[in-house]
C-alpha cells in the first residue's frame, strides 16, 4: 500500500459516523453506476447522459449563468445566444466525458484502444514517447476527455497523473482504483514522497498535470485576456529536471472516439531570473491551453471557477 493509500485509510477512521455513512452511500451509488454503465449499450448511456445534461443546464441556474459568462468574457463569441449554445454543449460534453471515461476503463485495453483513439501527436513527441529512457512532462486541461488522454497515452508509455484527492475517502479510493490502469498511476497532489514527481520523469515515464485550475499558491498569467492564477509546478519541474514539456489533449470525435493531439515538445533555458522563467513557461503553456479551448469551445469545461 502506498503512502497515499495510508492517508486515505486514516481519513476513513477519523470521520464521524454520519459523514462516514453518507460517504459510503455515495461510494455504493458510484459502484452501482459503474455496473450499470458496464452492461448498458453505449448509445443508451450517452442518450441518458445527454438528457441529464439538458436537465442540469435548466436546473443549475447559477452554474449555467457562470458558464455563459465565462464564454462571453473569453471572447469566444459576443452573441449571448451562441454563448448559451456553447455553454449547453459544454454541460453535455462534461457528462459524456465522465460516462465515456468510466466505460473506457472497462472496455479499452492494450489490444483495442487504437479502435477508439486516433493518435495524432507531433512527430517529435512520438519520438520522445518511444524512447524508454526519456521522461515527458505533459501539461493538459479540462478539454475533451482528459481521462481518455491519460489512458491512451499510458498504452504508449507508463504515465503518472497528478490528481487532487476527493474529500470522500471511500469515493477517492474507488475512483483512484478505477482510474488507474496497468501503466497508469495517480499521484496525490501532495504526495508524501517529495521525490515522486521527479523520479517519475527520471525513470522515463510521463508525468501529466492539469494546469487550468485555480491554483491558490500559483501565479497570475493571462488566460483569455484575464488574469488567472495558475500552478507553477510544471514550470519548476521543467527547470529542475530539464525534461521536455508537451501540451496534449484528447478531443472527442464521436461516440467513444477520440483523437490524441499534441503540440511540439517545448524546452526552456534558465535565464538566471527564476521568476521570469517560471512566468514565461506558465504563460506559454496556458496560451497553448487557450488555443485548444478556442478551437473546441464546446469541449472545454467553462463552468469551473478559473478566474477568481
Amino acid at each position, binding site marked *: 500500500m502506498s503512502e497515499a493509500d495510508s492517508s486515505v485509510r486514516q481519513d476513513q477512521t477519523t470521520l464521524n459516523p454520519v459523514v462516514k455513512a453518507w460517504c459510503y452511500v455515495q461510494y455504493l451509488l458510484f459502484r452501482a453506476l459503474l455496473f450499470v454503465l458496464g452492461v448498458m449499450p453505449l448509445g443508451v448511456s450517452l442518450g441518458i447522459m445527454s438528457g441529464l445534461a439538458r436537465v442540469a443546464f435548466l436546473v443549475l441556474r447559477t452554474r449555467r449563468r457562470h458558464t455563459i459568462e465565462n464564454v462571453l468574457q473569453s471572447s469566444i463569441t459576443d452573441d449571448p445566444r451562441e454563448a448559451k449554445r456553447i455553454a449547453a454543449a459544454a454541460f453535455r460534453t462534461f457528462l459524456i466525458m465522465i460516462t465515456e471515461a468510466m466505460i473506457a476503463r472497462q472496455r479499452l485495453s492494450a489490444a483495442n484502444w487504437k479502435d477508439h483513439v486516433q493518435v495524432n501527436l507531433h512527430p517529435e513527441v512520438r519520438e520522445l514517447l518511444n524512447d524508454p529512457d526519456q521522461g515527458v512532462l505533459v501539461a493538459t486541461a479540462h478539454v475533451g476527455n482528459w481521462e481518455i488522454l491519460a489512458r491512451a497515452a499510458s498504452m504508449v508509455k507508463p504515465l503518472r497523473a497528478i490528481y487532487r484527492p476527493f474529500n470522500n475517502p471511500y469515493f477517492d479510493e474507488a475512483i483512484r482504483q478505477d482510474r488507474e490502469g496497468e501503466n497508469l498511476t495517480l499521484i496525490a*497532489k*501532495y*504526495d508524501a*514522497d*517529495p*521525490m*515522486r*514527481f*521527479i*523520479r517519475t*520523469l*527520471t525513470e522515463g515515464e510521463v508525468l501529466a498535470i492539469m494546469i487550468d485550475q485555480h491554483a491558490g499558491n500559483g501565479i497570475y498569467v493571462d488566460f483569455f485576456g484575464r488574469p488567472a492564477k495558475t500552478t507553477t*509546478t510544471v514550470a*519548476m*519541474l521543467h*527547470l*529542475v*529536471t*530539464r525534461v521536455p514539456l508537451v501540451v496534449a489533449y484528447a478531443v472527442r470525435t464521436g461516440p467513444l472516439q477520440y483523437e490524441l493531439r499534441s503540440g511540439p515538445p517545448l524546452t526552456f533555458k534558465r535565464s538566471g531570473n*527564476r521568476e521570469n522563467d517560471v512566468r514565461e513557461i506558465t504563460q506559454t503553456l496556458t496560451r497553448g491551453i487557450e488555443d485548444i479551448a478556442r478551437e473546441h469551445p464546446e469541449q472545454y469545461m467553462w463552468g469551473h471557477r478559473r478566474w477568481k
Partner: protein
Amino acid sequence: MTADLGRDELRTALAELIASQPDLEVDVKVIEETTKIEDIGFDSISILDFMYEIEGKFGIELAVRDLVEMVQVKDLLDHLEGKLAK
C-alpha cells in the same frame, strides 16, 4: 560559491539554504549528515525550489537522475563535493 569549499563550509552553506526555504519548518541544527532527505520536511513542490536554488547557490548543474537516488544529506554533500571539485 566556488570550488574551494571545504566539507564544513559546504555543510553550512547547505544548512543556510535549507533554513531559507519559506515553506519548511525545520530546525537546521538537528539536521546531520545521516539525516534522511525525506525527513527534512520537503513536499513535492518545495523540493523543486530547493533543488533550483542549490544550482544557483553553488553554480553547478545537478544531475537529477543522481539526486533521486540520494537518501541522506551525506549523499547530497558528496554529490556537491564531486561537482564542485570538477
